[in-house]
């Protein structure tokens, strides 16, 4: 598990904005680090606890109250109400006060150093800066939650009911502080109805795709659409292709600015396949100039067969999805049968929940989280929001969203998780890669030139002593 790197807090939040604005259809924005000013000396939790049992692992005291603050954003505030009924069934003598707002920082930050709530959904444009909260020691370590028995089965720890990456995403400086509840999967979308009608099966590798593409073109449909105006959309795809083709080490070397990392065989195989995709005219005409919503609508209009984007797609386009359209996500293709990591999936968690250290009832806050992570809590969230939760199998019983069902299925077959850090770590490489991907996808740059360009940019960053370097394993 890669250690969470030290990053420039505001820089990170700002860049993350673009990607997370999309993540789960929510907007996570930078918040000023005003908190630093009002953080009192961190004291230990002043929770009153009852006795700890497997059914009450944190010892929530009877007669106590739990203050829960819900962010009422893209995912709504209905789902915690259901979790509250689960909680009440187990702890009838504990009162839960649910309140929802969009002004998390405005309302919670002034209370934080004295009387914070017990559980906060720190999300949205007005959320609190995590780095500041963590550095000031204001958050409770949620490690005990991970090691507590799960809600449904006392023999299984909560940790083992979570989707891969969730623990990593919430870990800062080696401690688990943030329980990210929603889960986003990235991949390549297709319309099942169209594929059934023509007897096509979604490819697993570029080789299979290149075999299928002529049949798609024969139907006057472009095989592949993408959001060319924002090249980071294609970066998700290209980095996943590189990971699958060259294995984890190919991407880790790129992130670590290793000399020649962009020119290895694994990377070149993925880049050559990308070049062929463009050079063979398999992309939707004009895709290189389209915004994300324009390309998504073109795909919904049946102009293209495949589209690479994340699971927020259904929510983002819900007002214009044609009747009888069955959107499904498939894993990013590998390159060929020689791939080193054919089952790697690009996915991650978001929509963080935190327990303040100074809350009057931290045990109650954690216990409520445990209820949220239960099977029925997760299933309710999935059916209400059509998004996956970080609990495994949350989409198992949802029948009215092919998008969610396919994402759920994809996570079941997932091997390792794809992750790449260089755009977050180095703004210069973020820009350089977006420019190069734009050129590659517009057909103005070859795979070889792309590799040279990126290598030169990476070498330049590596050689610039004024840039703080990060590493991962």
């Amino acid at each position, binding site marked *: 598990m890669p250690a969470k790197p030290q990053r*420039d807090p505001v820089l990170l939040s*700002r860049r993350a904005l673009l990607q997370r604005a999309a993540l789960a259809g929510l907007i996570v924005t930078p918040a000023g680090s005003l908190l630093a000013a009002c953080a009192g000396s961190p004291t230990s939790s002043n929770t009153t606890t009852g006795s700890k049992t497997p059914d009450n692992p944190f010892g929530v005291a009877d007669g106590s109250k739990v203050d829960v603050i819900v962010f009422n954003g893209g995912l709504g505030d209905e789902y915690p109400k259901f979790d509250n009924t689960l909680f009440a069934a187990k702890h009838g003598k504990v009162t839960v006060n649910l309140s929802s707002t969009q002004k998390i920082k405005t309302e919670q930050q002034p209370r934080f150093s004295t009387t914070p709530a017990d559980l906060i959904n720190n999300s949205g444009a007005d959320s609190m800066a995590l780095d500041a909260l963590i550095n000031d020691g204001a958050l409770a370590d949620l490690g005990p939650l991970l090691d507590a028995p799960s809600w449904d089965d006392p023999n299984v720890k909560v940790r083992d009911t979570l989707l891969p990456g969730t623990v990593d995403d919430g870990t800062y400086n080696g401690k688990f502080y943030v329980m990210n509840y929603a889960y986003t999967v990235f991949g390549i979308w297709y319309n099942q109805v169209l594929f059934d009608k023509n007897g096509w099966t979604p490819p697993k590798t570029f080789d299979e795709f290149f075999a299928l593409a002529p049949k798609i073109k024969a139907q006057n449909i472009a095989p592949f659409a993408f959001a060319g105006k*924002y090249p980071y959309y294609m970066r998700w795809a290209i980095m996943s292709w590189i990971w699958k083709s060259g294995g984890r080490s190919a991407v880790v070397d790129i992130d670590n600015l290793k000399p020649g990392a962009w020119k290895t065989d694994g990377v070149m195989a993925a880049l050559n396949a990308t070049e062929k995709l463009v050079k063979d005219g398999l992309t939707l*005409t004009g895709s290189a*100039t389209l915004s994300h919503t324009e390309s998504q609508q*073109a795909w919904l209009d049946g102009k293209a067969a495949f589209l690479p984007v994340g699971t927020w797609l259904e929510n983002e386009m819900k007002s214009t999805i044609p009747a009888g359209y069955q959107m499904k996500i498939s894993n990013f293709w590998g390159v060929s049968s020689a791939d080193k990591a054919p089952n790697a999936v690009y996915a991650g968690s978001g929509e963080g929940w935190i327990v303040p250290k100074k809350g009057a009832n931290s045990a109650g806050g954690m216990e409520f989280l445990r209820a949220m992570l239960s099977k029925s809590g997760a299933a309710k969230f999935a059916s209400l929001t059509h998004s996956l939760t970080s609990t495994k199998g949350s989409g198992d019983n949802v029948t009215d969203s092919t998008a969610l069902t396919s994402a759920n299925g994809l996570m079941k077959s997932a091997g390792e998780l794809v992750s790449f850090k260089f755009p977050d770590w180095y*703004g210069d490489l973020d820009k350089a890669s977006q420019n190069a991907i734009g050129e590659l996808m*517009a057909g103005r740059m070859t795979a070889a030139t792309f590799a040279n360009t990126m290598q030169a940019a990476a070498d330049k960053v590596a050689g*610039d002593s004024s840039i*703080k370097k990060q590493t991962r394993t």
Partner: protein
Amino acid sequence: MRHGKTRFVVGFLALPLALYVWYVVWPFAQSIGYSFTDWGGYSDEQHYIGFANYVRLFNDELIRIAFWHNVFFLITVPLITIGLALFFAFLLNVGGRGNRAGIRGVWGSGVYKIIFFFPQVLSLVLIAVMWQAIYRGDDQGLLNGLLIKTGLVDKDHPLGFVADPTPFLGVPAVLWWILFIAVWGGVGFYLVLFSAAMQAIPKDIYEAALLDGASRFTSFFRVTLPLLRDTVSIAWVYLGFIALDMYALVFVMTPSQGGPNHASEIFASVLNFTAFNSSRSGRYGYACAMGVALGIFTMILAALQLRITRRERLEF
């Protein structure tokens, strides 16, 4: 009474002036201060590094590209906007002749004035968003759709517009397409400005010229233009400021804000990236140096412009 008047004026001006100094002048001064430091923008740590940021500015390849792109706008935007605005203003005010006596504009000039002025009512970002639909790079785009329907453009090779870096006359196509929007959006205002100035020219001057047998062409170049000298000169300075900015159009419309691949990079887009996204330390101080350099450049240009065109004012 004189003393009371002064107190009256000061009383009214003190508050706005204080606000202006605090919110406009003081931040300017601060930027100049920061431009001599290696401040990163997010900490309270900064060191004085003298002119190092300015030296770096002259060796920055990206800044050089951006500089020439701004120079392109600096030449084209005022030239084309003022040319068109003068032409239209002339037609709308004195261009119509017909067979009746007197000086008037072409038929329906009142309506044209409103139409030409219309873009001025919209915010620049709104204009950019609207033009995205017009410039869209597939057959759904307004222009591409028309061109493909009429067979002027091959449906497999629609125009890229703001995503097209191909050089035209040595300048990337994307800049020409952005120039078009800037001119379209700017002409209306200067048309109205010049119209007002033209209406202030006494009609008998034109009538005298007419009696002497002057054509429209002659009356424009020999009568109108010389009498509009001051107005045109001011317009040129304003448009120069706009040409050195152009940030909104580039930021909203071009791929990766200044792309494709730096083809539409301008001073402001490089400055924005440097201040907020660059991975180098000391980026904020460097970005401030860019801003200060741009400010100095703008002031020199404005001063030169007003100096060159200064002449004896004609009273009528």
